[in-house]
């Protein structure tokens, strides 16, 4: 561990990205508290569409769910007329959390402290003793309810997926995603009504960017995830590709399943366990449900969403930042209203692959914890991203770190680093 009594915290203004560019990532991006605050301001409260909910979670008038945009708590509501709103869950009076329930149905929200009451869209409807009591007290005569509502975010919905932004002048979601990534998004969200199957949630003691790096990294999947390669769900020699939008902020990893088989072509895939067979094969009985040959599509949407399609398991993985060295991962699993019981059961069984107890994704949460530990004691060092070269272009294989490079290329622009 590098440490000396003379060492002082380095100011963000003195931070300098390595000269080699995005083939290097300095470890302080995972540990610098001032940088985290700048990320909250410029990324999560800046010009970005954060995923907040599926419309199917709040189907009826008055339904609401609580979530966060960056580390700001918000409530996603549906008003009496059916419109969806996203408001900051913080009373305009003294900052108390207004809504305590994780979900529910309410057409007004009342702060428990002084009973200020808000509408679904955040408007302040009223407050006790506004005109005083018996001629005493009361708010100033010029107090205007319209100026003291819950802060409202801009809301956009596409095919049942709700996004919100603190920036009210942002481009449409279609323009934001770009044509290629919009096409992949619409592949899963094709307008069919969704059915929410349930939630898995976990805290990960790592910087949030490590989660994006993980999903944008097909190189690790065939090496770390022995379960995946053993059962053919993901392998370095399966046909696959990586596609970014023009900015590099969004990307998609596409691959296709193969049967459990002998390794051909390369000796590098050593981790297949030929001795393993499933005692209950119904654990993995994927059926084709989307057009085309892709069986795995992992899409990362800046700044807080991973859309997961691995075989028949569909989930939104929402990142909620908590501090520079901790984030939460909220998994919302879903299917379609039109699924039959057999398909629903298949999705529920395949959910065993993912989440905090996932046969596959346990590997990732554990590695991210170790990555954070390494970064914390490597402040003057940097990560290397040269697999597949130094470019930022789409690829048709998975032996690459290109999507991580593209992510940091965009990140550096937004963060002015």
């Amino acid at each position: 561990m590098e440490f000396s009594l003379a060492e002082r915290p380095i100011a963000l203004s003195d931070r300098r990205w390595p000269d080699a560019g995005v083939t290097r990532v300095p470890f302080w991006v995972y540990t610098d508290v001032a940088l985290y605050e700048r990320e909250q301001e410029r990324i999560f409260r800046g010009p970005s569409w954060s995923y907040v909910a599926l419309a199917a979670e709040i189907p009826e008038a008055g339904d609401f769910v609580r979530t966060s945009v960056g580390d700001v708590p918000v409530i996603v509501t549906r008003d009496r007329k059916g419109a969806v709103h996203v408001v900051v869950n913080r009373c305009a009076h003294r900052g108390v959390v207004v809504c305590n329930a994780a979900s529910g149905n309410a057409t007004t929200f009342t702060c428990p402290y002084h009973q200020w009451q808000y509408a679904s869209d955040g408007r302040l409807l009223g407050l006790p003793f506004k005109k005083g009591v018996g001629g005493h007290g009361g708010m100033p005569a010029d107090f205007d309810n319209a100026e003291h509502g819950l802060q409202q975010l801009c809301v956009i919905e596409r095919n049942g997926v709700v996004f919100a932004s603190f920036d009210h002048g942002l481009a449409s979601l279609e323009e934001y995603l770009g044509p290629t990534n919009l096409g992949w998004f619409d592949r899963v969200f094709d307008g069919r009504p969704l059915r929410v199957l349930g939630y898995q949630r976990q805290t990960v003691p790592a910087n949030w960017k490590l989660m994006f790096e993980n999903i944008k990294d097909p190189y690790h999947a065939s090496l770390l995830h022995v379960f995946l390669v053993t059962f053919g769900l993901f392998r370095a020699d399966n046909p696959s590709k990586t596609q970014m939008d023009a900015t590099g902020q969004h990307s998609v990893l596409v691959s296709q399943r193969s049967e459990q088989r002998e390794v051909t072509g390369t000796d590098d895939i050593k981790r297949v366990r030929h001795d393993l067979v499933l005692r209950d094969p119904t654990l993995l009985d994927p059926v084709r449900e989307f057009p085309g040959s892709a069986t795995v599509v992992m899409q990362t949407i800046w700044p807080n969403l991973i859309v997961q399609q691995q075989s028949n398991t569909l989930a939104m993985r929402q990142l909620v930042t908590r501090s520079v060295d901790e984030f939460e991962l909220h998994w919302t699993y879903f299917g379609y209203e039109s699924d039959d019981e057999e398909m629903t059961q298949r999705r529920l069984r395949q959910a065993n692959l993912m989440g905090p107890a996932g046969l596959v994704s346990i590997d990732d949460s554990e590695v991210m914890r170790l990555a954070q530990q390494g970064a914390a004691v490597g402040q003057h060092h940097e990560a290397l991203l040269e697999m597949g070269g130094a470019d930022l272009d789409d690829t048709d294989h998975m032996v690459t770190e290109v999507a991580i490079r593209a992510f940091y290329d965009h990140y550096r622009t937004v963060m002015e680093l």
Partner: protein
Amino acid sequence: MTQSAPARSRTSWGPLDGGSVRELYDDYAALLDDGHYEAWLDLFVAGATYIVTARENIERGLPLATIRCDSRAMLSDRVDALTSTQFFARRIARHVITAIRPVGVDAGSVDVTANFVVFETLVDEATRVHSAGTYADQVVVTDEGPRFATKLAIYDAPLVPTSMIVPL
């Protein structure tokens, strides 16, 4: 979810002996915590279901689980993953199981509820509470003694700290 019966109207153990059920839960905790997974699997009947889920899914009527095994064979596949394919930092788990109570009786089975707390110790960290919650199980009579036909572990906190490596 099976509700606890009020204390004053305690259900009997019916076809089971209360002491042997206590032993079943003690064995469950000890075998899991010591990593004797094959012996632990033997505490389930072949057609047993084993489900771990967050309380919020139960309360919202949502079917998703964090671990869902529809058979002992599927649970055995999970043990294979745990012992041979998954990567995780070494840790020690301690299951503490209390308040084991019968809440419903049938000819050859008893519905049982219990509380659990699981402590987790990673080699380089202080011991922490990993999870707390309740079991809502069905225990059946077999020639080998009482065995689980259903185990439903409902953990209270929605957020799992990092990973759930050892089953609850």
